[in-house]
């Protein structure tokens, strides 16, 4: 304000009491010649002048005199009298151009130059009223423009309102005029509420074309009042068009561009759809959007949605948007994609990426005929990185707010517009309404689609779990065979599944112990691997690996998880090491495949839980190389065992009179047996000295392990066939036989129960148990009195005395 006053002091105070009428006439008086330089008498004297005289009609009407040339204005507004430099810094109202033919300028009020051009003097005059008016509000304008009256005087049609395709003027701005706009040099009407031309346009010193002061673009100005329509509002974030988004592969049509749509810096802005002046009626759009025609100017590829069941003009005539509009009223696109946010009612409380689909298809939110029922559907909102091992996949992933992210949501699998899926459909796949039968999937068949994320599971194809290879006819619970359901669908339902993994196979009919049946992972396998079912050729047998117990030596999460079929098997991949489909036929497996999670020919899988037993590896009991079998396999089988514990063979035929725990050793350690080099002629302990006293058994480290507490003395009383050495962590077949090796349980015999009876003889007898000498009186450690004393103690304890 003070700057204005400064200028007027330079002119008005000099004018003094001169009347306005007088000032308009040529006068060499200094007050006039301050601007009307050509009126100066100096030009009449014939003396040299610093600047030449220019013969122009300096009266404003139909004139373009030096008085209103830019240099004259700037000679005071350059900062040294008034600082209006900002007005020269940016864009400004068109000057030195003829107004368009459509404009009707009242030149009696707003004179043009002699060239018929708009110039500074068209709008400005120092003589526009009293000094008070000029200073207080006229701002040297030819008329009061506080409510954009002068703007509208030349641009009268721009005041026509939305009904004729123009932005509202002189209407109250909800929430008041934004302070941010005031800081940009914009202003509301004099009532401080209504929008006027100067609420968006800054006539001098604007950063952008259209006299927009924001360097960041027109949309920033729009957004200050229409935050909810920019996709930045709190309620519908990202559900509106993203203002400022890079167009990327979107190519706006030529008709749209010709209609005046703007895409500054190849980015989407408010003016990409809207034309604030001379737009369409009511919506002030660049083009009419009848039946979404405007939308298709950029999204032409999505036009195919009209051929799908998502053409609600055909399939949902009775449906309404959240605002109660029908599809006939708003068009195909806008029935879901409202002008500036999702058009359907959102329940809230869930990620937007789910909500948008659920607004029509969600449980208890039945809007369409296609409702997702049932307790279990494909998981949503999970990070795909675990499945995809961090690899970039072809399907789109999202953030919770439906922006770009790394999570799987409905739209990861479904292309709701059909632009992709319809290309994959056949013309014959149309219903009676002419709509393509589609589930909007992003891949030709379900198996391919699943496989884009489930990189491991896709290898089920060609394995024994590929239903197309089954010998028996198979149908899932929807009575769909593999042809109808797809490969994955034979076992899994993506929506409306009965279990968390959408298991589609009828559950087993047999009665199973609780430790088996309580874990669904076991039941899923038994659903097929049961008598009479498609997997009946692969049953576990009566003697099979323990289920339902926590593994003692597993690590991490496995430690707290009960052993199930899924602990060792994963049903989707025939071989754990080969990234390929199965063999393409039903075949017997081995330790390198068989749906095992870890290749097991070296016992790697068993080792995960049986770390102690795995010390047999490379010991003398590791006959894997010699027998061409797995490390564990020569002795043990996991399923269909011949006798406990998971023994691979029936040993009773060799030594039927022996106890089983000795018998399984003697099976090999016999004449002509594979272990004949370690043949033991003497192996039985005298019967009368069997261990039978629990009190005695409760003593010592060895007995606490409980592995041989069967109150008998047999091979396993002293030996652990998995431990070549009690102290070495791994077996070493080359080690010399000694008390520290030889599969003896204890390096120190004193730690065995033998010492309870044999006392100081223990070491000798323990080490040389299988020799005659150790058992005879020639035993150098033989001391009958000590033995008798020990037996007395034993019997006393046995009686409980």
């Amino acid at each position: 304000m003070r700057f204005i006053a400064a200028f007027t002091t330079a002119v008005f105070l000099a004018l003094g009491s001169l009347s306005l009428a007088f000032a308009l006439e040529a006068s060499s008086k200094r007050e006039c010649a301050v601007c009307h330089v050509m009126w100066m008498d100096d030009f009449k004297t014939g003396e040299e002048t610093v600047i030449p005289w220019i013969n122009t009609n300096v009266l404003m009407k139909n004139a373009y005199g030096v008085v209103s040339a830019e240099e004259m204005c700037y000679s005071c507004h350059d900062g040294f009298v008034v600082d209006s430099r900002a007005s020269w810094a940016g864009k400004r109202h068109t000057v030195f151009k003829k107004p368009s033919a459509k404009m009707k300028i009242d030149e009696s009020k707003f004179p043009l130059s002699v060239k018929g051009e708009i110039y500074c003097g068209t709008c400005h005059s120092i003589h526009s009223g009293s000094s008070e008016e000029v200073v207080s509000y006229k701002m040297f304008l030819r008329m009061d423009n506080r409510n954009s009256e002068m703007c509208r005087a030349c641009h009268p049609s721009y005041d026509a309102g939305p009904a004729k395709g123009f932005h509202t003027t002189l209407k109250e701005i909800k929430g008041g005029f934004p302070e941010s706009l005031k800081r940009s040099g914009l202003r509301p009407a004099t009532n401080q509420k209504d929008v006027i031309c100067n609420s968006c346009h800054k006539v001098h010193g604007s950063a952008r074309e259209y006299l927009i002061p924001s360097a960041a673009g027109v949309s920033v100005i729009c957004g200050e009042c229409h935050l909810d329509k920019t996709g930045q509002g709190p309620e519908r974030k990202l559900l509106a068009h993203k203002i400022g988004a890079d167009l990327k592969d979107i190519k706006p049509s030529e008709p749209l561009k010709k209609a005046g749509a703007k895409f500054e810096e190849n980015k989407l802005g408010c003016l990409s759809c809207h034309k604030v002046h001379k737009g369409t009626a009511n919506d002030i759009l660049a083009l009419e959007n009848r039946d979404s025609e405007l939308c298709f100017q950029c999204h032409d590829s999505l036009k195919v949605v009209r051929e799908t069941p998502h053409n609600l003009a055909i399939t949902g005539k009775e449906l309404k948007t959240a605002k109660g509009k029908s599809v006939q009223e708003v068009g195909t696109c806008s029935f879901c994609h409202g002008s500036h946010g999702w058009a359907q009612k959102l329940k809230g409380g869930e990620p937007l990426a789910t909500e948008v689909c659920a607004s029509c298809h969600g449980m208890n939110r039945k809007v369409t005929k296609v409702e997702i029922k049932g307790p279990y559907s494909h998981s949503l909102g999970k990070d795909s990185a675990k499945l995809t091992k961090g690899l970039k996949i072809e399907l789109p992933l999202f953030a919770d707010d439906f922006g770009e992210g790394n999570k799987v949501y409905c739209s990861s699998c479904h292309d709701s517009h059909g632009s992709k899926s319809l290309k994959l459909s056949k013309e014959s796949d149309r219903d009676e309404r002419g709509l393509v039968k589609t589930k909007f999937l992003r891949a030709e068949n379900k198996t391919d689609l699943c496989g884009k994320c489930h990189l491991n599971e896709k290898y089920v194809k060609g394995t024994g779990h590929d239903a197309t290879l089954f010998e028996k006819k198979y149908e899932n619970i929807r009575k769909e065979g593999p042809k109808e359901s797809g490969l994955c669908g034979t076992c899994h339902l993506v929506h409306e599944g009965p279990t968390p993994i959408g298991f589609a196979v009828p559950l087993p009919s047999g009665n199973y112990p609780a430790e088996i049946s309580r874990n669904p992972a076991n039941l899923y396998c038994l659903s097929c691997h049961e008598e009479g079912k498609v997997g009946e050729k692969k049953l576990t047998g009566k003697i099979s690996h323990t289920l339902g117990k926590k593994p003692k030596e597993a690590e991490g999460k496995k430690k707290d998880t009960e052993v199930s079929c899924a602990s060792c098997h994963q049903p989707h991949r025939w071989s754990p090491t080969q990234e390929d489909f199965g063999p393409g036929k039903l075949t017997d497996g081995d330790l390198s495949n068989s749906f095992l999670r870890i290749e097991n020919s070296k016992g790697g899988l068993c080792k995960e839980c049986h770390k102690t037993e795995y010390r047999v590896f490379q010991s003398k009991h590791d006959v894997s190389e010699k027998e061409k079998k797995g490390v564990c396999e020569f002795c043990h089988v996991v399923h269909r065992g011949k006798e406990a514990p998971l023994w691979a063979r029936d040993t009773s035929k060799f030594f039927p009179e022996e106890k089983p725990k000795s018998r399984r050793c003697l099976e090999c350690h016999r004449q002509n047996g594979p272990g004949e080099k370690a043949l033991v002629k003497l192996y039985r302990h005298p019967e009368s000295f069997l261990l039978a006293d629990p009190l005695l058994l409760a003593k010592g480290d060895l007995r606490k392990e409980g592995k041989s507490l069967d109150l008998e003395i047999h091979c396993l009383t002293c030996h652990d066939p998995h431990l070549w050495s009690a102290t070495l962590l791994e077996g070493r077949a080359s080690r010399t036989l000694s008390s520290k090796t030889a599969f003896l349980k204890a390096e120190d015999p004193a730690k065995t129960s033998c010492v309870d009876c044999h006392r100081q003889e223990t070491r000798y007898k323990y080490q040389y148990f299988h020799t005659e000498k150790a058992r005879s009186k020639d035993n150098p450690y033989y001391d009958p009195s000590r033995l008798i004393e020990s037996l007395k103690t034993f019997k006393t304890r046995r009686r409980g005395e």
Partner: protein
Amino acid sequence: MTRPMTGKGSMSMLVILLLLFSLLPFTAAATGSAGVEFSGEITGAQGIPFNQPTDLVSANGRLYVLDGLNHRVAVFDLAGKYLFQFGGDFHRAIGLCADQRGAIYVADAETAKVKIFSPDGGASGEFTASPVGNNEKPRITDCAVSAKGEIFLVDNGNHHIHVYDRSGRRLRWFGNFGENNNEFRHPATVAIDDNGVVYVVDVINNLVKAFSSTGEPLQMLGGWGITPGKLFRPKGVMLIRNTVYVSDSYTGAVQVFDASGAFQGIMQRTSGEKIRFVTPTNMTSAGSRFYIVEQLKNRVSMWRMGGKR
């Protein structure tokens, strides 16, 4: 504004200058036997064009340009090669000046702050000019530092000249609104000669007024008119020894007066052609080089006396 040579070594250069200028002034004066030749222009710094620069000063063997609406001071060597810049947070600063030690002062017109920088652009202090009595906040458009270290500030809004010390204490002020020899109508710029005489450009009174350091009116140069020796929109003043150079932002002329106020001529090319700059404002010199801000043209044009390079 006059830019007396300041900084280290400036005295020796000044002696050389005095000799040169006594023989070869920028203007032909009455003789027309000498003049200047265009030697180049500076239009921006660091890839950013100037945005209505207003002032410049040669000091410390460098050229400091106040780049108006870019709110920065861009620094060049005397050949116009960019060196560095500082500031960036000025508020409509219009004037800058240098003291005898080479410190740079930037006057913020909007905040009335005077910011002091080291020759390399490091901030070394600031103070705020306070209004006189009930006047409005000063609108400082220029500054000049006397040999005594007194800082003269042009209060364009209140038509005063303030005199401050470096600590920000106002020592005195003079001038009021009016047309008399001790009054102003929008004083714009200020320069101080070696004798401590203060020259103030009085824009709307079309004069350059000389004062003693205490504000006693001494004489006036120019006056209303469009003939040689008269002023229409005087803006900048530069002093070289006993010669006063005054730019006129509307006519584009730089007119030359002697210390007595007698008109000497209009700055011209060596060919005798009078030069019309585009909206010229402040000027400075260094040796035989002459620099002038052409504000609306967003440039500093560089000239050589006698056209020699």
